[in-house]
């Protein structure tokens, strides 16, 4: 008879192996998201952009390390590197955040997720941490390259390496702040639409539009206004927090004694974004 009846004779096997818990499921979504962020398991087309950005940041880091090794000039330190790469990071999240959430909205795959033992908070948490990791890698790995360059060419031996490490670790912390702020803002925007192009545009627009506001505020004659101007732009907000947490490393943006204000706003922005995301997905998860 037909091929189908041969197949059908093999029969159906029940599964009585282990069923893993919440942690493993979260891990599966996290790994899946992180792979998707860099285009693994996707078409060649979706690899282009993440790898272009990663390539450029690493290239810049290699050049910085080379310049420093040859001439001793520190063009950008670790913290300033993050600020200098900000536009690339914006482009990166504008592509990757929609890839992580808009895609699922668009294809209607969420009912399949939420008809399984998975909560909206777990789904979002895994996606959020995946994006944070991806952004952190895009900046953290080049910083590590710079560190390697500096460590191997240091003229003061082991203590020089330790000094470098003392510079690198706070910078990695600063990179984490970048990653968390950018991930929460961009995921929130991306979760509003299933159209990836709209989501990407929205994310770029948010960061793009806020910069002129910052510029205008900084031109005000009041010193306080200038010191608080950074609050208007996510990028300057992060810069302000960085200046406050790691004085002497940053871009020297004037924040006066308003450091804590910057920190509070950053924390509020992150918390608000995550809560709004959760509220949004509570609605989506009930199909």
């Amino acid at each position, binding site marked *: 008879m037909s091929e*189908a009846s041969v*197949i*059908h004779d093999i*029969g*159906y*096997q*029940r*599964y009585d*192996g*282990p*069923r*893993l*818990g919440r942690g*493993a*499921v979260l891990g*599966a*979504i996290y790994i*899946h998201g992180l792979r998707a962020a860099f285009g693994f*398991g*996707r*078409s060649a087309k*979706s690899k282009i952009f993440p790898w272009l950005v990663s390539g450029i940041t690493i290239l810049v880091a290699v050049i910085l390390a080379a310049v420093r090794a040859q001439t001793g000039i520190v063009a950008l330190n670790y913290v300033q590197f993050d600020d200098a790469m900000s536009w690339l990071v914006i482009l990166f999240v504008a592509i990757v955040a929609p890839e992580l959430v808009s*895609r*699922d909205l668009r*294809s*209607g*795959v969420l*009912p*399949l*997720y*939420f*008809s*399984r*033992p*998975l909560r909206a908070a777990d789904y979002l948490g895994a996606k959020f941490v995946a994006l944070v990791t991806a952004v952190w890698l895009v900046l953290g790995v080049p910083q590590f390259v710079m560190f390697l360059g500096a460590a191997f060419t240091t003229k003061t031996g082991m203590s020089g390496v330790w000094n470098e490490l003392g510079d690198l670790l706070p910078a990695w912390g600063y990179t984490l702040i970048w990653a968390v702020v950018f991930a929460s803002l961009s995921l929130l925007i991306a979760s509003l639409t299933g159209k990836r192009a709209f989501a990407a545009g929205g994310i770029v627009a948010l960061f793009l539009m806020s910069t002129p506001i910052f510029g205008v505020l900084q031109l005000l004659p009041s010193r306080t206004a200038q010191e608080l101007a950074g609050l208007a732009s996510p990028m300057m907000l992060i810069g302000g927090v960085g200046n406050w947490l790691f004085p002497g490393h940053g871009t020297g943006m004037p924040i006066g004694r308003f450091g804590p204000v910057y920190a509070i706003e950053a924390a509020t922005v992150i918390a608000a974004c995550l809560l709004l995301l959760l509220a949004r997905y509570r609605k989506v*998860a*009930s*199909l």
Partner: protein
Amino acid sequence: MSLIATEALTKTYGGRVTALSDLTVDVEPGVIGLVGANGAGKSTFIKILLGLLAPTSGSVRVFDLDPTVVPDKVRTRVGYMPEHDCLPPDVSAAEFVTHLGRISGLPRTAARERASEALRHVGLYEERYRQIGGYSTGMKQRVKLAQALVHDPDLLLLDEPTNGLDPAGRDAMLALIHRIGTEFGISVVVCSHLLGEVERICDSLVAIEGGRLLRADRISAMTTASDILAVEVSEGTDELSAELTKQDFTVTRDGRLLLVELSEEDAYDRILRAVADLDLPLHRLDQRRHRVAELFATREKADV
């Protein structure tokens, strides 16, 4: 033990739209048809069973568990196939079903093995490594079914599984569902607005309309034992009808068709002989089972 038991289940949206009202059913394991027109409350019912919606009032139990209290325990044992398109176009079926298996809590290797098993059972072989975007509607429906099967559930909830399929595809899908219910030992709830479609494969039937229960019973209790023979002759329909009535057959006229109840063993031969004796040009002979639809016909009209 009953599979699904509801007690005066009611769901209203925003206090105005009533999706389900006072629904009390007790369903045993097997293949269950959930029949109703579009908007009758079938999808709402399924979402309540999955614990995605909370009922406004009344109680619901699946495997004797309350999905409003322990949704995770219920969902682990349930596979859900949504009505609408729910597949990403740019991944392969194998990868997609594996991923969903992992979200159901299967370890990595088990998820991969069971994904290819599930895809094989629904009839996707080498094409499972191709991107879903290039699949036909029939193949997509099969992938949707495979993802509901991947974690070896005890109950499948299928929302309009034959949606968008051509007649051959419908038959194949229904045969597959029937096999899942009988050979795989998995209970299946099949939602459909086409009664004639699900009655062929179901053990029991739940019919709802406007959120209210029309009838819930086993198919065997609904259909009479006797079959029906549809006879069509090009001419002389009246003569044949008279002849058969004379021979104590119950004959009903349905357009150009004569529907004759086959009550005795030799009824089929006797009808054929009657046609031959009258020397009528026979057009069609079609043996059918009593349609459950006929049982609902009067009630549904009464409701309208």
